[in-house]
């Protein structure tokens, strides 16, 4: 009985939103391509890909996280902060995003620190 219920739930989840799955799948392709170009040092191209991914699927936390890293690498710190915050808003318990954001904040706070604060 429990097995049937579990199976039904699984089928319902998989069939419920094919559109959402397509959206995520398209966004994921952009994210994967962005990762491969970032690993080759092509950060501007990576930014383009991850921006596309966030446009396709604004709820994709990984895309926002990666975009934040790329902005950080390009010195666009305000944009990086906004992207990290969006990623954390979507996945507040993601330890990787939290770790990235903490490291970013450390640099950002250190360089903007004044009057001994």
């Amino acid at each position, binding site marked *: 009985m429990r097995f049937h219920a*579990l199976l039904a739930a699984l089928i319902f989840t998989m069939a419920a939103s094919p559109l959402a799955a397509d959206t995520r799948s398209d966004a994921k392709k952009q994210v994967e391509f962005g990762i491969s170009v970032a*690993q080759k040092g092509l950060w501007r191209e990576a930014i383009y890909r991850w921006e596309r991914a966030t446009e396709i699927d604004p709820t994709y936390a990984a895309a926002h996280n990666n975009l934040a*890293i790329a902005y950080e690498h390009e010195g666009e710190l305000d944009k990086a902060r906004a992207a990290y915050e969006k990623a954390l808003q979507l996945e507040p318990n*993601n330890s990787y995003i939290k770790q990235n954001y903490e490291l*970013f904040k450390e640099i950002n706070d*250190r360089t903007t620190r004044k*009057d001994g604060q």
Partner: protein
Amino acid sequence: MTARLARTVSSAALVLLTTACTNYYEIPIETPIRPKLDVSAFQRVLVAGFISGGTDDVDANLETTRLLRSQLRTKSELRVIDTDVLPLMEVANESNSQSSGGSAASGSGSTQTQIKDEKDLEPFERVFANVEYWKKVGEEYQQPLIVTGTVMFTPHQRNSIVQREEEVYDSFGRRRVVPVRTYMERKGYILRPKFVFIDGRSGTVMHSENFREEILYNANQTTPALSSYFELMDRLIPSFLSTLSSQKIKGTRILLQ
């Protein structure tokens, strides 16, 4: 049978889900930090010296001048002017005595013994607003960017409850590390520099920044004052340098799929 199958299906789903969630790539990045101050008009920098006070164990004026010059030499594009430190205390005393009709001069004796706290510094800080003096210095050194300011390096003591880790062994001889809170007497130093950036062409202050760092050790630990001074300056140097030149801070981040 059905229950076992259900367990297998849910375990597989969980593994798939976990794998999907933890697809990550560590990547090195370099974060460029733009300078706070536009120094493109200057080719040269003069670290003129500092008005210093606090402990007698460290000559904070000379040490700060030396340290900043060596850092600027290696980490900025400006040419560092090598010269003796300027007698800022004398200049400050002179201008103070002129403004008060000769009664405020207290130029004799060591500067280190004169300035013990922030209040003692106040009368000397007017020297940074002496436009005529800095303009003259600028003319002498071909109109560089001038770095000067104040440095207070004072001993500090604080008694408080601190948490430290202690090794304990249970009855089976197994080692454990447990946090223990103890009341401790701690001694150290506070470093309070103020960096003032002056335009050597006009003699006016372009920018100034205050910092505060402190370090505390166990009271029974003997750490030379000069070591503490360098440890505290090490923390401030990146911020100081980021005022003048763009910096790249290396690190790693996690890309997610």
